[in-house]
């Protein structure tokens, strides 16, 4: 009983704090748009993941020449195969990335630090936009992650009775160039026509993993020496989030059919 009394008094004295929370602005307030913009700016400037992405802008510090990666691809039609990537040239502000594929044209993708900056902006703009309808989906604490960030870009054409919908789920890994999100991706396509139920989603899945040179050498596709690489560039649309067009993508790799149904 004595112990209880002492505990009780201690708890009481330490419970004399009062914490409350309130919202200062509602949608009718004249400064609401400023508040929204401020929230977006703060999200872009203070989210840890974007700060970490910025650190990758000096490619010569972030990536190693001669790094190999394997892209595992699973398509809705049941096809499964692997493509391969080699970071072939690294400079401070440019990467030359060889993409080896038997299914598509092989390419050398020229990825610049300007592309990288634009890509960070494109993601940040979409993730942090005050417009909920356009905002890229992400988990609540993902922005504080230092190494991985996943988000979803949904686009729809039509209305609830008849539509075509594309949902692209990207994963960016800071151990890889940001452009690799092209191959850390799941793209899901779904249709609905009038008087018919929505189709089952068609999913194509891509995932990138690091491999060693020995692993590459032991693979007939990766080790082939007769590739004819075509140099292609990357274009980034920093305002892609603001469009619901099915064709609107965050970035495109020249001559690369990104939809790949």
């Amino acid at each position, binding site marked *: *009983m004595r112990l209880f009394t002492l505990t009780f008094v201690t*708890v*009481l004295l330490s419970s004399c704090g*009062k914490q*409350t*929370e*309130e919202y200062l602005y*509602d949608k009718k307030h004249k*400064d609401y748009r400023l508040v929204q913009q401020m929230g977006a700016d703060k999200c872009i400037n203070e989210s840890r993941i974007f700060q970490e992405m910025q650190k990758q802008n000096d490619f010569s510090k972030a990536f190693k020449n001669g790094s190999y990666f394997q892209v595992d691809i699973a398509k809705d039609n049941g096809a499964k195969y692997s493509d391969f990537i080699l970071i072939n040239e690294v400079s401070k502000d440019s990467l030359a990335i060889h993409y080896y594929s038997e299914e598509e044209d092989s390419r050398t993708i020229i990825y610049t630090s300007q592309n990288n900056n634009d890509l960070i902006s494109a993601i940040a703009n979409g993730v942090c936009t005050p417009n*909920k309808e356009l905002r890229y989906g992400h988990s609540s604490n993902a922005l504080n992650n230092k190494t991985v960030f996943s988000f979803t870009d949904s686009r729809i054409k039509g209305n609830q009775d008849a539509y075509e919908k594309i949902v692209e789920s990207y994963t960016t890994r800071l151990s890889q160039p940001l452009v690799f999100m092209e191959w850390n991706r799941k793209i899901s396509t779904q249709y609905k026509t009038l008087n018919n139920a929505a189709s089952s989603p068609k999913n194509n899945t891509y995932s990138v993993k690091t491999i060693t040179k020995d692993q590459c050498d032991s693979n007939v596709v990766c080790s082939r020496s007769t590739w004819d690489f075509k140099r292609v560039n990357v274009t980034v649309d920093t305002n892609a989030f603001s469009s619901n067009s099915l064709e609107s993508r965050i970035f495109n790799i020249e001559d690369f059919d990104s939809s790949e149904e």
Partner: protein
Amino acid sequence: MKLGLFFLTILFSLSASASFLEYRDESFRPEDLKNKKWLFNLGVGYIDYPTSLPEFKGAHTTVPEEEKVGVYGADLGVGREFSLIGALSTSIRIGAFYNKGNENNNGKASEDVDVDLANVRTDHLIYGAQASASLNYLFETKYFNIQPFLEFGMGQGKTEIEKEYTFDGVQPDNSDAESYLAEMEEDFDFVKTSVGVNFISRTGIISFIKATKMSASYNEREVAGEVNGSSLDSVQDEFDEATDIYSGTIGMGFFF
């Protein structure tokens, strides 16, 4: 939380006759109580304290010239009871009180913008020492004794209050940002009158409840701080100001 704790205290106060027996040794004899006249008590108090911080009207908070704040704390006393006539007795006691509180209000931008824009923090500390005398009358019942009392006291106290408000602003140039900080210290003398009831178990364990009116006269009030960059510093040492402060205390004690 606080209400729950108060409810618990009341519950335990009213159950004095039975559950508090365990405070005493099993060999305790009720007749020994008649020789035990010293008493000790510890209470939990709530004080409704008037504050006089420099006035301020901001976009998201207002500090009125006068405001009452509720602060919880502890009240401790040691004294001795003297029998007068029959059931009438008097108690003389010295004691101290210590009330401390903290309020923090966090202003978020809006429901869909999770940004902390404003904050209001208020810390209260009120403490002092007192001497008191009470007149008591004992009603004996089968299970425990009831002792209403009227208490008079006097003492000195000190108050330390700190209020800080910050608003970061939403304009791109932060032109609407605001800040307010006031740290106030007051010294006061007081006389007080309390009415209350002791519930005394057969073993001399006391549970009590009392209400107090304290008339405080201030000796010195010192304010330091600033509002939007302008100083609020001031010292006031000549007062013609007396304030009534009300408080309530519940607690327990024992004769020894």
